[in-house]
């Protein structure tokens, strides 16, 4: 079955065509962030109002480069939440209209489930595992028994991990968003030079907090710092975030006896996180999987892949189904 997926939950306008679980026919993203990056970290314009302008072009490109006609589609699916209501409405309304026009089923997909399953992209089975979804907007830890059977173990109490990266980058004068720049500078830095707090490391639960770390960095920087210290500051900050993410994720895998650990979302591209997680996986004998490149930040292919699992089980939705802008663990975890 060929699935056309549309993703417009936040800044990215994306469309993709997937056949089965693994045949990528097209994968299109229009990102405001990409356009602005050449100007050196200018705050990307919030694209929600641009979804309406961009989506028809992005969908046309996705269909054309896939070489499929709308009549060849087995389903049209879209992210229905969580996300920005005004943005979600554009994507879901377009998908509903296309599904009606093509005379095929419509399916609403949860954005978080898209990230959650992305490390298994291409596969028909989802094995039991612990999943960390970590991005600019989310920091969520799940116990996954199988496809559709998820338990939320923990989430951030305040800032998402990616947000902490971007806000600290701005404090350091690296622009916004600047998480990638912190990662780059941290590579040559000494992470043990500055002692920064590991938020909720010993809280005994699986929740996260990065606001205290952000404040600690701000107070540290207010005392003044030399440009030459930037790599050490970045490395020390990054280690404080990564230590907690890795410790809690692997502790969950240990306590719940899950042999596989996955990491997805934009922050899963962070080199510090990947290295620390790999070392921990080797030590603890766990299998570690990351979302593939191109599927880490928001995209429509992960939505198509999650949809493929639902459609394979005969699930589809009425076109009267409303969007769900809020992240409601109950709707995902049942």
């Amino acid at each position: 079955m060929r699935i056309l997926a549309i993703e417009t939950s936040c800044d990215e306008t994306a469309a993709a065509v997937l056949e089965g679980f693994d045949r990528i026919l097209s994968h299109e993203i229009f990102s405001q962030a990409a356009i602005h990056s050449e100007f050196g970290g200018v705050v990307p314009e919030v694209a929600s109002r641009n979804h309406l302008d961009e989506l028809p072009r992005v969908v046309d490109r996705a269909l054309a480069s896939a070489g499929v006609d709308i009549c060849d589609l087995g389903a049209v699916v879209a992210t229905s939440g969580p996300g920005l209501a005004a943005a979600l409405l554009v994507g879901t309304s377009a998908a509903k209209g296309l599904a009606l026009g093509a005379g095929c089923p419509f399916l609403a997909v949860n954005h978080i489930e898209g990230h959650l399953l992305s490390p298994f992209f291409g596969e028909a089975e989802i094995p039991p595992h612990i999943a960390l979804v970590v991005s600019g907007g989310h920091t969520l830890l799940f116990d996954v028994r199988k496809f559709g059977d998820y338990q939320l173990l923990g989430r951030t109490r305040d800032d998402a991990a990616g947000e902490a990266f971007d806000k600290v980058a701005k404090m350091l004068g690296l622009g916004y968003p600047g998480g990638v720049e912190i990662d780059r500078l941290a590579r040559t830095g000494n992470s043990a030079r500055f002692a920064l707090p590991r938020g909720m490391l010993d809280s005994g639960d699986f929740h996260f907090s990065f606001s205290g770390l952000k404040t600690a960095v701000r107070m540290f920087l207010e005392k003044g710092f030399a440009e030459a210290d930037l790599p050490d500051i970045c490395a020390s900050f990054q280690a404080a975030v990564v230590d907690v993410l890795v410790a809690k994720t692997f502790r969950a895998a240990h306590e719940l006896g899950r042999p596989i650990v996955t990491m997805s979302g934009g922050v899963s591209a962070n080199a510090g996180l990947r290295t620390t997680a790999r070392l921990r996986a080797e030590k603890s004998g766990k299998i570690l999987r990351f979302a593939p490149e191109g599927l880490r930040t928001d995209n429509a292919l992960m939505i198509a892949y999650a949809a493929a699992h639902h459609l394979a089980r005969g699930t589809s939705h009425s076109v009267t189904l409303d969007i769900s802008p809020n992240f409601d663990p109950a709707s995902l975890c049942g």
Partner: protein
Amino acid sequence: MANRNPNFGGIFESGGRLCASEEETQALGRAFAEEVPADTTLSLEGPLGAGKTCFVRGLAVGLGLDPAMVSSPTFTLVHEYPGGRIPLVHFDFYRLDSENELTGLGFEDYLQSPAIRAIEWGDKFPGALPPQTWRIRFSIESGSRKIRGTR
């Protein structure tokens, strides 16, 4: 519930309120929410780490919501927390560039129905705030958080 003479945790008194811990900031948000009218816009203003999100967590508790639902909407721009005494809508203007972007956010729509609207970094676009917005300023003074409101 609403008192005859609400004092909103004392944040509107001259000098505001000093909170020595996150717990105190959250308790203040809670006391505030127990007295706040059903259709109120709050602009939460002050530097990073001054306690804005923490205060919103307190608002959630005061409205009968689970505070664990509250997280920073910096990236996601708006979080809605329905199910309490009054719906709570949590905005963050931090990464917005211009007032025009509020249209894409559906900001006007959120002003139409009764809710407590808490806007972090609301002072970025003072012209976009509705006329009766309560401005609440957060500052950091030797480790404590000072919270002061004006109406």
